[in-house]
């Protein structure tokens, strides 16, 4: 998150054909389609006569084991997955434990159609073939219990160790695909990640420790209780430290006359604290994390393998909310919040052709407060109306950059701004199997405004079959970094006149439940992005400036097959074909894999005590900034999870990158490396004790 110093060295473009990868992907596609056909064919005989799952036929024990299938993100109120005006994936804490996910990035990687890149500093989420260099996930809205996490400088949605909440505190996650600006405003551009924290009594008292390769350990202590007065309390603190990889070899830095230099600055250390108090309809929650990450890659033209070279991110908020349900279907909700984000980066430069080196400090300081309120109710039979508004007051949006000693200032910029939005949505059941959902939101910013509608038609001829047709628009407001970052004309200039970028998406979804054990989802989409905010270079002086220049077309299909059985066996296979290209020229975007295949299965070796859960990911080649292609990657993890090893003790052992696949993710413009090499085989042992 710092200024772009020095032009990257472009490597010669080698036009490596990716025919092999297409063939592999072709095989995978055939298999998936075959599976789809098989599954469609199989239960067909009895299907027509038995369209409805009759819950009265199930035993009490079976019912008690059943999870309530609802999502809230897609419409800002609880509804069944099949009635949501979007394609939604839910990941539960059960899956997080069984598959041994370590960070939100690991969880995101398991979701159909998503991919994650890592540059050994931050994690970048790719959605629908779109992952821009220098974009800190600003095109995905990240919420914790509905509280917006994207900050007010970079709009970043943090997903790696930089994500402030310990993932052990997650109850479940909803990933909602497609535009969400009609309800949520800016950033809900490609999708939304809504994280729901665990209930206090469910947490009780927990201690958890884990040890991982590369000298990484982590500890957590949590306390949750519900008192007779009705007060619910949850307190949790976590600490982690990782030395990271030692002696990382980057050929790009091996030209040193004294022999190759190895990087040893991969450490990652974090502390976080979460608390929540609820009494009746009122909830007060607070979250804080500080993370410091060493940068081993020599990014931004810093002196390779020197210290200090790190970024530190502090993120915190206090949130007071009120929710009241009225009758069966009505609810009102209100929230006030105060948020803070502080970023500090220290970078070591060789400005005089030798020692002493100069330490450059890059800082951002964001503080904001806000309020939102909305109501949801059924004013008429067959209608469900939601409306509300949101206000955000930015108290500070400061960016600065200076050399520490001798002091030299390059940037000292601060802004105050407010923005607000109003939305309304109606769900109208035209007749029993047909639901129309239509909504619109107006957002006002100091220099621009934006109107974003969404409409969807949901047709459910029998309860096991759902078709959705969705049209939606979304926007992303230019952030402070894009509008105001300038360092006195050394490398970057500001562009306060940036306009919001806009996406229009058409999507068709078919969700099918077969019998009661498995379901499939097929979705096809086409999006057009206009006025995309991109980093460009001024032809006259070579300075970096953000402009609304590009148009992007993104088209794709996503298939998934998911299953859960009584025996405890569960699994998921998914395939995504994505074509994200520059409109007009048809050039494929940077870091945009054409094919993604994922498969995971959790096998109960001894239900409900012992589970073996392997997971496989395939990612087809991605183009780097220098125009090269990465290898296609087959990546596997496996976790052995033991529940109640001794009373109250859960234990898990995981191996990550089981085949020790050597691969790299495309690097952003700040890196000399064209691809950033990723971790080889690694392990983790984890113990959680509940008492």
């Amino acid at each position, binding site marked *: 998150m710092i200024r772009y110093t020095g032009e990257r060295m472009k490597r010669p473009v080698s036009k490596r054909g990716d025919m092999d990868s297409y063939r592999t992907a072709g095989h995978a596609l055939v*298999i998936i389609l075959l599976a789809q056909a098989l599954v469609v064919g199989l239960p067909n005989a009895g299907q027509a006569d038995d369209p409805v799952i009759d819950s*009265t036929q199930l035993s*009490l024990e079976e*019912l008690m084991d*059943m999870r309530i299938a609802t999502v809230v993100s897609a419409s800002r109120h609880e509804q069944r997955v099949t009635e949501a005006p979007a394609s939604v994936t839910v990941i*539960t804490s059960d899956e997080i434990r069984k598959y041994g996910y370590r960070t939100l990035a690991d969880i995101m990687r398991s979701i159909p159609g998503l991919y994650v890149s890592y540059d050994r500093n931050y994690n970048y989420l790719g959605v629908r073939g779109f992952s821009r260099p220098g974009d800190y996930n600003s095109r995905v809205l990240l919420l914790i219990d509905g509280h917006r996490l994207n900050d007010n400088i970079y709009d970043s949605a943090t997903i790696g160790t930089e994500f402030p909440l310990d993932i052990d505190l997650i109850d479940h996650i909803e990933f909602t695909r497609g535009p969400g600006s009609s309800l949520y405003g800016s950033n809900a551009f490609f999708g939304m990640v809504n994280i729901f924290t665990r209930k206090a009594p*469910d947490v009780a008292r927990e201690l958890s420790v884990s040890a991982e390769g590369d000298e990484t350990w982590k500890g957590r202590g949590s306390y949750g209780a519900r008192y007779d007065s009705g007060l619910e309390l949850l307190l949790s603190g976590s600490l982690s430290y990782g030395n990271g990889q030692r002696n990382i070899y980057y050929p790009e830095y091996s030209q040193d006359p004294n022999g190759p230099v190895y990087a040893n600055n991969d450490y990652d250390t974090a502390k976080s604290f979460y608390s929540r108090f609820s009494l009746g309809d009122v909830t007060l929650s607070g979250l804080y994390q500080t993370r410091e990450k060493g940068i081993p890659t020599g990014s931004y033209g810093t002196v390779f393998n020197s210290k200090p070279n790190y970024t530190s991110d502090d993120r915190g908020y206090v949130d007071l909310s009120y929710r009241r349900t009225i009758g069966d279907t009505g609810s009102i909700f209100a929230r006030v919040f105060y948020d803070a984000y502080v970023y500090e980066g220290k970078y070591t430069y060789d400005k005089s052709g030798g020692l002493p080196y100069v330490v450059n400090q890059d800082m951002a300081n964001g503080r904001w407060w806000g309020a939102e309120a909305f109501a949801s109710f059924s004013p008429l039979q067959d209608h469900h109306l939601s409306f509300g508004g949101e206000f955000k007051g930015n108290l500070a949006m400061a960016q600065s950059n200076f050399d520490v000693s001798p002091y030299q200032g390059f940037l000292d910029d601060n802004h105050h701004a407010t923005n607000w939005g109003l939305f309304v949505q109606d769900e109208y059941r035209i007749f029993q199997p047909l639901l129309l959902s239509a909504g619109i939101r107006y957002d006002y910013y100091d220099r621009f405004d934006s109107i974003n509608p969404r409409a969807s038609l949901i047709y459910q001829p029998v309860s096991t079959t759902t078709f959705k047709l969705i049209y939606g628009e979304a926007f992303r407001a230019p952030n402070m970094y894009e509008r105001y970052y300038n360092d006195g004309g050394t490398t970057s200039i500001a562009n306060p006149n940036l306009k919001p970028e806009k996406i229009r998406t058409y999507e068709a979804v078919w969700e099918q439940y077969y019998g009661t054990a498995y379901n499939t989802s097929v979705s096809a989409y086409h999006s057009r992005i206009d006025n995309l905010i991109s980093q460009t270079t001024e032809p006259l002086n070579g300075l970096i400036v953000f402009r609304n220049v590009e148009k992007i077309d993104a088209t794709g299909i996503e298939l998934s097959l998911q299953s859960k059985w009584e025996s405890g066996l569960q699994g998921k296979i998914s395939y995504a074909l994505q074509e994200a290209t520059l409109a007009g020229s048809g050039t494929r975007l940077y870091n945009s894999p054409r094919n993604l295949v994922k498969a995971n299965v959790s096998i109960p070796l001894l239900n409900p005590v012992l589970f073996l859960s392997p997971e*496989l990911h*395939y990612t087809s080649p991605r183009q780097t900034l220098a125009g090269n292609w990465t290898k296609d990657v087959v990546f596997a993890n496996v976790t052995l999870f033991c529940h109640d090893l001794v009373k109250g003790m859960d234990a898990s052992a995981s191996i990550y990158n089981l085949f020790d696949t050597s691969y790299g993710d495309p690097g952003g413009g700040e890196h000399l490396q064209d691809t950033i090499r990723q971790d080889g085989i690694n392990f983790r042992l984890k113990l959680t004790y509940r008492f």
Partner: protein
Amino acid sequence: MRMKGTGIFISFILMVILAFTLSVTAVAAELGEYEIKSGMLYNFTNFIEWPAESLDNARTLSVCIAGEKPANQSLYRLQGKRYKDRMIVVRQVREPVNAIGCNLLFIHGSETSHLTAYLQMAQKRSILTVSDMENFAANGGIIGFIEQDRKVRFEINLDAARHAKIVINSQLLKLARIVSGRKY
């Protein structure tokens, strides 16, 4: 290396597909909230003994729903099901006084203002009261649905059942969380 990996990958996928297609005897692990609750409500009746004088002569068991309509749809699934040699009849009640003749009364969260009246009526006439309002069992109801970890659980207030002369089979009690509380 890559081809080897791909081979493993494809075999793995085939394995998973095999598992998918072979497992036909299975049960959905997710259902709508009220579908789960209505299934449970039906199951409850199998573990309940009403005093003979509270049951009518028309060989029906009357399941009543107090509250608004929309979320009730799945509760109507009990209509026509059997309780011993009786047929279940589902009807809606709008006032506590209309609950006369009910054997099982499901009280919606919207009815908090009438709660005391419903509970008093229910206790006098041996009506099994069930609700998903907060602390229902502790406040004098007999069975209260609670939600835990996105699953439906239930609490039973034995004193309230005893005062209504309703006998609950121990098998049901084993699955429930027993709470003590007020009775009417």
